């Protein structure tokens, strides 16, 4: 029997089509733009400048901007406000004090919204609006980094009061209620915050570091154990939450059980695969159609924060040491993507409000303050990693 030319051609065509489909759909090019320390510094400066240049007199940040419609977003979110303040203080803690004035103004805005919740605890919220644990948690983080920068102990009592509020929200298994009602004067039962648990974990871990020996570590560890072992089932999460706040918390508190170590290795994998996927998003064509537009700046930044936190932790935790180089590589990739995608002076020149464009990360024409918040924190960690490589 003879193989016909047509059959042979059909086989070859099937191979070629298969390889093309495999390349386009499953294994597109992963591009991590290079970014040196100068580019990282410039990106950080531009993003922080965006935050403080567009800050109101009362310390409130511009919440967002739609450059396509030239429209300022009038909404506001106190958790994101506290997060941006924290990012500015993180810069100050690394010796860059250009942003202290803006960060202090941001704290002043929060101080006006402090409400007592009983038993020496305070939360931060607008009148008659439920307080979120995330606002308290990220305010603690901000004040922790302020203290690292200035060391004046000015807000130590407020940090403790906010910490007591968080502890008061913890339920026995380590779950933490996400909201507190000023109307009832009590936590809102059965309501949890998606990111609040990790934020509170990190905040309590920071308090344990700042004020050792008074029990903050016990509270933090109960939440950490819950995150690592029970949260996914308890909060009905189909997929594990890629929780960069939890990574921050464990980086601060360390690992205390094999279960936590296993969780962190899985979390590192989650951040890794998300970074690899994000690095395939570029340009146009069928690949862009398949993979959608670039992720939010906040999303990419949060990836970097998670990777950076685990990279820091891997330096001291033997169970993660084998991942450190890979974490470094992915963090560097995230930083390159952020630098490449940040709006620059050229983008701003075409805008009626260039100050609301330059230094920001836009997705489908819009930016929010947390795009800059998360990106600044991530780039700062990437800078630290780059310095580490330079030092050998």
């Amino acid at each position, binding site marked *: 029997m*003879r*193989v016909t030319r047509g059959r042979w051609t059909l*086989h070859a065509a099937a191979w070629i089509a298969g390889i093309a489909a495999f390349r386009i759909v499953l*294994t597109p*090019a992963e591009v991590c733009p290079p970014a040196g320390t100068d580019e990282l510094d410039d990106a950080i400066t531009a993003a922080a400048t965006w935050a403080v240049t567009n800050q109101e007199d009362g310390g409130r940040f511009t919440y967002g901007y739609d450059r396509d419609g030239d429209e300022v977003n009038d909404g506001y979110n106190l958790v994101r406000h506290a997060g941006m303040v924290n990012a500015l203080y993180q810069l100050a803690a690394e010796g860059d004090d250009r942003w202290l004035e803006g960060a202090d103004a941001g704290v002043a805005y929060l101080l006006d919204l402090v409400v007592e919740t009983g038993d020496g605890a305070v939360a931060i919220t607008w009148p008659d609006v439920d307080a979120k644990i995330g606002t308290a948690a990220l305010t603690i983080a901000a004040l922790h980094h302020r203290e690292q920068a200035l060391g004046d102990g000015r807000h130590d009592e407020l940090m403790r009061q906010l910490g007591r509020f968080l502890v008061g929200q913890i339920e026995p298994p380590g779950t933490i209620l996400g909201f507190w009602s000023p109307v009832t004067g009590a936590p809102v039962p059965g309501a949890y915050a998606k990111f609040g648990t990790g934020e509170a974990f990190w905040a309590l871990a920071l308090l344990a570091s700042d004020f050792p020996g008074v029990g903050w570590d016990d509270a933090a560890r109960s939440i950490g154990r819950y995150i690592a072992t029970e949260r996914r089932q308890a909060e009905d999460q189909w997929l594990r939450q890629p929780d960069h706040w939890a990574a921050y918390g464990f980086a601060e508190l360390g690992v205390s059980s094999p279960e936590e170590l296993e969780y962190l290795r899985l979390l590192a*994998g989650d951040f*890794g*695969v998300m970074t690899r996927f994000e690095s*395939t998003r570029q340009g146009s064509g069928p690949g862009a159609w398949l993979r959608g537009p670039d992720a939010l700046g906040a999303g990419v930044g949060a990836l970097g924060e998670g990777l950076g936190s685990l990279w820091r932790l891997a330096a001291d935790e033997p169970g993660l040491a084998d*991942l450190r180089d890979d974490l470094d590589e992915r963090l560097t990739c995230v930083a390159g993507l952020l630098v490449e995608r940040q709006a620059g002076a050229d983008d701003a020149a075409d805008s009626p409000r260039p100050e609301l464009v330059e230094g920001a990360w836009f997705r489908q024409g819009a930016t929010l303050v947390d795009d800059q918040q998360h990106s600044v924190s991530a780039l700062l960690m990437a800078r630290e990693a780059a310095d580490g490589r330079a030092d050998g």
Partner: protein
Amino acid sequence: MNGWALALLAAAATAPAVAVLRLAGAPARDVRRGAVAAAVLGVVAALVATTLLDALSIEPESFWIGAGIVLAGIGLVRIVLPVGGWEPVAEGPWSWLVPVAYPVLLRPDMVLALMAAGSHDDALWAIAGAAVALGVVVAGLDRGRPSVWRATARLTAALQVVLAVALVIDGVRAV
């Protein structure tokens, strides 16, 4: 995945039972030469995997996911669909190459499995697995009942699906 698992995956993806069924009646000398040719090409695929992926800007871990998905898909098809009719065997001096080495023996899933192993730093295990599978083809040609080979084909396809899922999980969990 460890070396053993990658060797099994490469062996399953080589699908020796399918090849035995398709090559029934082919000259044994052609099958031997074709198996050697397929093995050589498979070795090349495994050894150049890392370089090739790097040139294409594909991280190995991402390749494992893509390859695992395809391997699982092909495996599922092989479980569900019966092995097709006899592969027509060419006459002439080059029949060991076409169609014996290609397309019967050198299969896309075999190449993917070997490249995945090559980028996993376990190329030798996978090469050994594929070599054993090709040896089974040579030794089993025109022997045994077709029904036994069909059952074996489904069994190895099921093994391929399981190991391919493990490969995907490896890729997802890797940083």
